[in-house]
């Protein structure tokens, strides 16, 4: 649709093509300079427009290496204070003929990055309505990074478990060997020591429930 708040038609460089009538071959461009750059925003003026036309010409030359597009081949009209306008590309040989939409689209897509950088803008702030941006392909590393961290952590945990198991196993073996020697001495001295051993342990806190239960039942 054509919102027409302010119509500032640039006088067409060549009288033949009027982008109002040829809009089916044109694209609308919208810039959001102040939103993107904030304090460092520049004003949109004739020089900036010239730069824009030059970059589009560059894009067309890059795409179509045989033809020599000039700034005059880029026709702009319907500028608004929003900073949006329409442009049409005309053929260098025949200024009355507009280049078809598809070719313009492919050219812009190819050089999109250069066009954005010329204005210090991004795909979002320099919009070509109708030309979807080619989103940057994500960098897929060979090993997913999460597996690397996972590998480190699980390695550390395995090492910890093995260390704990080995130390307890070694300790138990050592205790078993140490027990074999005093047990032989015990057997020589008889059972007395064994009895004292058990009661000593009871005092240490092995709670003898049998005792306690008897107490309870008598109270009831």
């Amino acid at each position, binding site marked *: 649709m054509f919102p027409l708040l302010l119509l500032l038609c640039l006088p067409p460089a060549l009288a033949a093509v009027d982008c109002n009538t040829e809009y089916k071959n044109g694209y609308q461009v919208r810039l959001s300079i102040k939103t993107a750059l904030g304090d460092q925003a520049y004003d949109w003026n004739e020089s900036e427009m010239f730069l824009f036309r030059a970059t589009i010409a560059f894009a067309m030359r890059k795409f179509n290496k045989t033809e020599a597009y000039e700034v005059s081949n880029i026709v702009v009209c319907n500028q608004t204070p929003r900073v949006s306008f329409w442009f049409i590309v005309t053929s260098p040989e025949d200024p009355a003929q507009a280049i078809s939409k598809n070719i313009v689209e492919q050219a812009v897509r190819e050089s999109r990055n250069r066009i954005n950088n010329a204005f210090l803008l991004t795909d979002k702030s320099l919009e070509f309505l109708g030309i979807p941006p080619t989103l940057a392909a994500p960098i897929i590393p060979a090993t997913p990074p999460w597996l690397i961290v996972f590998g480190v952590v699980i390695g550390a945990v395995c090492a910890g478990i093995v260390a704990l198991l080995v130390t307890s196993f070694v300790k138990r073996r050592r205790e078993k060997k140490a027990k074999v020697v005093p047990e032989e001495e015990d057997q020589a001295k008889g059972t007395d020591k064994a009895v004292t051993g058990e009661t000593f342990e009871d005092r240490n806190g092995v709670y003898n429930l049998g005792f306690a239960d008897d107490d309870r039942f008598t109270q*009831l």
Partner: protein
Amino acid sequence: MEKDERPSWDNPMQFVLACVSYAVGLGNVWRFPYLCQMHGGGGFMIPYMIMLVLEGIPLFSMELAIGQKMRMGSIGAWTAINPYLGGVGIASVITSLYLCLYYNVINAWSFWYLFHSFQSVLPWATCPLNSNQTGYLEECEVATPTQYFFYRETLNISSSIDDSGGVHMGQALCLVLAWMIVYLFIVKGVKSTGKVVYFTATFPYLVLFIYLIRGVTLHGAMNGVKYMFTPKLEQLANPQTWINAATQIFFSLGLGFGSLIAFASYNQYHNNFERQAVIVSLINSGTSVFASIVTFSIYGFKATFNYESCLERVRLLLLNTFDMAEDTISLDNIDYWISELNRTHPDQFASLAPKLDTCDLEAELDTAVEGTGLAFIVYSEAIKNMPASQFWSVLYFSMLLLLGMGSMLGNVTAIITPLRDFKVLARNFSNETLNGLVCLFCLLLGLGFTTRSGNYWFTMFNEYGATFSLLFIVLIEVVTVSYIYGLKRFEKDIEDMLGHRPNWYWKIMWAVVSPVLLISLFIFYIVDYIRGGTPTYQAWNPDLGKSVVMEYPWYGQAFIALLLATSVCCVPATALYAFCKKKQKPVPSHEHTVSAISGL
């Protein structure tokens, strides 16, 4: 001879930290803030504190007393209290088993998110591209990137519980890691657990404190905190508020699982558990409040961010449609311009109306979320918008991990301690082997939760596995101690341990208030189940990009019944078994002697 001596905590501080680590878990972070929001913000503190005093502290202290007195796990302790009620201990162990199975899956998800935070761009910050790189994947477009990352990349969720799909390898690996870490922490029983809890109990507080500072300094955080603390006292008239306060205290303290009995059984006989019970309960509730301040400041930040993004979208739409210079409309005068443009260009404005979002800060703050949705979707969405988001992400998921691991320690100890009390097992299996077998068993069964429909089974376990059974168990516990075992005997036991009798507060709570409260909660749950009709669950619909409500199939409902029955039926089954065994006991020998002497 050394094998018979019961291992014990190195010092009472380890026991307190173990209880804190167990009680302070994920529920404090993701359930309490939700309840606060639903039931009138600051006003919710009133029923919460009242329930803490009436129900939380007395029941907590009772479980510690039982464990410390009997010096055995839940099965042995309850069998010693009354031979017919050993089933209470078995029911506790079974409920703990169910909890262990699904709780560690949350730790697996935390690990997954933690490992994925080590990237330059957080993977849940943007949508992945579609095949021809012209736009984003459709499922991600209709939902949000954080939801897409959780449902598609983390869970690879199927669209209903019937569609089971295969095991998600990444999740399975994380679950294996989670169980290995649990094993590492409990491999030597209380000796290793006691050292680990110094870290698991204290580090989450450090992270919460850091997050508090970060949270309140975020733009818009004050909106959230103000929203939380403005009390809506009319909510106090709603009975649901009181019920939710009671159940939150109950589940937050971890009563009925047998973990507290297990932990206390390793105490010295004269340990002052009474004071420790009060301290731990107060710390638990304090942490809930602390965590909800952090959560609400994050909510406020997220809501403000969304609100301002919404306003920005509206502003751009107006600028583009009416082709005005960029600096004419700013976020402040948007409302003025909306009315102005409506007046000057009514037709164009009317055509614009369907695309115009209404931006409402209150509505953003009102979206209350709880559970895994809060922890993994809402929080990660807020984190991705913070500066230095990778650091905050790592910190946050480490905290979740420690909270979850701390609770797991208690859960696994609740299973292992009663098992070790069986002399058969203790003689033939060493400590390390038995612990390893339990962990392996739980890991293998837990792999079922890593399938594509695993999240639906997880939700089922979460809602039905441990809620109803716990109420039943603790009700039987408190009635047994107060009436069957006898309050007088219990008082004498405590005097034996502590040197003084419990005062009137404890006795009234144990004998009267807590049983009444529990019975009313129990009745409420039953009524709710009956009135609720067929149980339903939330299934993720990839085309709509949101969850839809679906009914459980017949086998799902049968499984729910099985979950409830297996733990609840243990109590009457064991009582029956003990009764039959007593009947079959041979007649005592002294009767024979009497009959012989009298010549009969």
